[in-house]
């Protein structure tokens, strides 16, 4: 287990020296800031108009948390593309594979490092709900905020795991980037489409779609066991793919 931590720590520190990580943080925080501004604007206008004969609805943070997860589709590939692929290209893979480290420890360490980085970013985004909460009494719906943040963390972990898995398959980071992006686009949008057109068995496609587990579920304040299982399975699948790919590389 210590190996995982040593590798994760190096990866985490590496992000703070990497321009891509700063660009990703900037894009995410800027976009969320704009959504945050709009949320406040709409809330204040509703307050001025007095709503429709009653107190105005409390500001909702699902717009911010939902946007965050949507942005992951575009930004996580940039974060994970080099994680394993670049080690192969630079020859440092030879160093790690001849060190007393198991293949899966390497992959899990890489994933954990990137996950900790994104958790840092998620911690920064907490400022938006906290400010919204202080704007009014009795404050925002806190249980919805909790489940939305749980969803954000799970979705981040799942996207990163898939990204690490794909990165392990390639020695070219741009190939890893585009394949990861394609997988995310399928997971987020495309896989849910057939559900509307097939007569039976459409549930499977709905279940596979990440939107169904985040936007229609956790982000609305609902926790289903099936959603948790969905995200955990994606994490396991991604990390397993990564470990298998690293091991397969030895035998090639």
């Amino acid at each position, binding site marked *: 287990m210590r190996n995982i931590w*040593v590798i994760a720590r190096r990866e985490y520190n590496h992000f703070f020296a*990497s321009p891509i990580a700063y660009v990703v943080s900037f894009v995410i925080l800027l976009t969320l800031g704009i959504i945050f501004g709009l949320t406040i604007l709409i809330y204040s206008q509703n307050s001025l108009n007095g709503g429709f004969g009653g107190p105005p609805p409390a500001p909702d943070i699902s717009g911010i948390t939902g946007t965050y997860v949507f942005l992951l589709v575009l930004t996580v590939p940039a974060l994970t593309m080099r994680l394993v692929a670049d080690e192969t290209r630079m*020859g440092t893979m030879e*160093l*790690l594979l*001849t*060190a*007393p480290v198991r293949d899966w420890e390497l992959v899990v360490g890489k994933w954990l490092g990137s996950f900790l980085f994104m958790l840092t970013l998620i911690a920064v985004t907490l400022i938006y709900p906290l400010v919204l909460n202080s704007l009014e009494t009795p404050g925002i719906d806190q249980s919805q905020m909790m489940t939305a943040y749980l969803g954000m963390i799970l979705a981040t972990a799942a996207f990163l795991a898939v990204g690490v898995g794909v990165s392990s398959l390639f020695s070219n980071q741009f190939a890893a980037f585009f394949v990861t992006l394609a997988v995310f686009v399928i997971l987020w949008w495309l896989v849910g489409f057939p559900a509307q057109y097939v007569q039976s068995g459409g549930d499977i496609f709905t279940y596979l779609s990440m939107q169904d587990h985040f936007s229609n579920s956790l982000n609305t304040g609902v926790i289903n066991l099936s959603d948790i299982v969905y995200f955990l399975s994606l994490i396991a699948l991604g990390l397993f793919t990564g470990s298998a790919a690293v091991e397969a590389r030895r035998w090639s």
Partner: protein
Amino acid sequence: MIRVEGLTKDYGERRAISNLNFEAKQGEIVGFLGPNGAGKTTTMRILTGYMPPTEGTATVAGYDILSESLEVRKRVGYLPETVPLYTDMTAFEYLKFMADLRKIPNSADRAFEVLEMVGLDKRAESHIGNLSKGMKQRVGLAQALIHSPEVLILDEPTIGLDPAQVVEVRNLIREIGKQRTVMLSTHVLSEAQQVCDRVLIINKGKIVAEDTPENLQARLVGSERAALRVRGDADGLSKLIGKIKGVQNIHTAPDGSVEFQFAPGQDVRPEVAKAVINGGYELLELRPVGMSLEEIFLELTREDNTGRRKEK
């Protein structure tokens, strides 16, 4: 400490190494000599647990490379051919990272210790990307030494170093080789001669010769060679020394010197020198001509082709 039995590795259709057998004991420095593509790196990668062999087995430090790979990797220090470095880290950070991966207590102290050992303690805080090639090579070597491994496997350790550094690194390797097992690959025969206790020559994935450097050279050459140079015209010189008993195969080299051979243990050079001076020539030089690595390869592969392979 290293025992290799019937090691074979195929890359698809191509056989990179074929049925290698050799041994390296503790306190022995074994040189692995061969042209590019002979299978040196492949063998080293198998012994360090980077990849499994297609057939055959090997034990390193008493552990099987396949079933006890992690134990092997704990005990082996490895410097790959392309030095694996994180260019965005400082030399110190990199070595501390490697020390942590190898679970060394007080990793920071140990990282500094090995930096001193390779003479880079003053550059500890430099980013590896900004170091010269020779320095990078030494950081790579420091990484291989960090856990005081029982077995050290070095793939071309002196490549890219300047002559002073080459001497330093060779001394370092000799020092380490006193207590541990060292295996190093090289193109350079003189390096093998200076550093190694034993040399394995590998060509096209097969070991074609194995002996101490001295024996190997003597055996391969079969006879000793010397070159002779005089001031001015060398006409008639060949005829003159041709009369001396024991002098064979006289020919004139492109640079104007006259080369001849004689049987080992039957040194005719004093007689040749006397004859040359008595003949009225001004003797400038009389030197032994060693057999170069290239010639040894040519020799070995030629014998290989005609099926008269030299046995051990």
